[in-house]
């Protein structure tokens, strides 16, 4: 439990808002969907492996979109794949998040001009929460993107009435 470990003598009572508690719970266990599209997926696998150890952020990959909170689009999105990505995104339960990893999925990358088969940015088919630049981004960059997503979730209100 890290911060809270053996800090309380009697009562064990903490005061917080329900929104903060829910946000804390959600951001502490972001489960991305397990799929990779190109070389970025190799870096994503390295991030998941023991050296960078994605699990320490409560993040590990799930094989089904039904069980996933986030989608890491790691690699070149071809037009052929774009339809499938849209379908997979639609199959994920809300609240859902998308991390666009690498230049290809951000904007088409090196295929931006002559890639007749490449979608020039995954944000043309699904909404993206965090963009990670790089070709491919290092595992540290993916972790930074994940932490950015955590900050975004921390600021969200699930219970509080939206006044706007």
């Amino acid at each position: 439990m890290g911060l809270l470990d053996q800090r309380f003598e009697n009562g064990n009572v903490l005061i917080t808002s329900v929104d903060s508690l829910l946000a804390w719970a959600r951001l502490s266990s972001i489960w991305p969907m397990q799929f990779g599209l190109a070389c970025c997926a190799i870096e994503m696998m390295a991030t998941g492996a023991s050296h960078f150890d994605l699990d320490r952020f409560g993040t590990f990959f799930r094989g089904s979109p039904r069980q996933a909170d986030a989608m890491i689009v790691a690699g070149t999105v071809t037009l052929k794949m774009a339809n499938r990505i849209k379908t997979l995104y639609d199959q994920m339960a809300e609240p859902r998040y998308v991390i666009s990893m690498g230049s290809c999925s951000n904007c088409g990358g090196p295929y931006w001009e002559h890639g007749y088969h490449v979608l020039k940015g995954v944000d043309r088919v699904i909404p993206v929460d965090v963009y990670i630049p790089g070709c491919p981004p290092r595992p540290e960059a993916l972790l930074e993107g994940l932490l950015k997503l955590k900050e975004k979730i921390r600021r969200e209100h699930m219970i509080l009435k939206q006044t706007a």
Partner: protein
Amino acid sequence: MIAQELHDLLKTTFGEAILEAKIDGVFDPFVTVAPDRIADVARFLRDDDRTQFDSLMCLSGVDLTKGNLAVVYHLHSTKRNHKFVLKAVVPAANPRVQSVASVWRMADWNEREAYDMYGIIFDGHPDLRRILMPDDWEGFPLRKDYQVPEFYNGMKVPY
């Protein structure tokens, strides 16, 4: 066999079907074969005891521009240890070549790729459909006059 002997052998066997030859260039020696005889030539080269081309190393499509497409066959004999190149030139308006998928099984997917990228029709192919691009894609992307579509399935294609 050296390239000159291969050429002479093909010329005496097939005569008119052998259109052109370049034996002494800096590139691999090749002969150009009539597109409607290529399977016969291929089968002969595979089965004849002197040639024994049991391996098709590579089958490529080429856009020669000026209204012509070509198919290039790189052959290798693992038994005789010699190589040879066949070419078939077809007009882009009616690009029909005999399929060699029945001669070398690996030509199957190579011909599908050449069809996918250049629109070359391989007569006698067992299953000629696109292999890389989506089935509903229009046009043949590696042709020199290819224009990238504005939209595909509602998705904007250009940057």
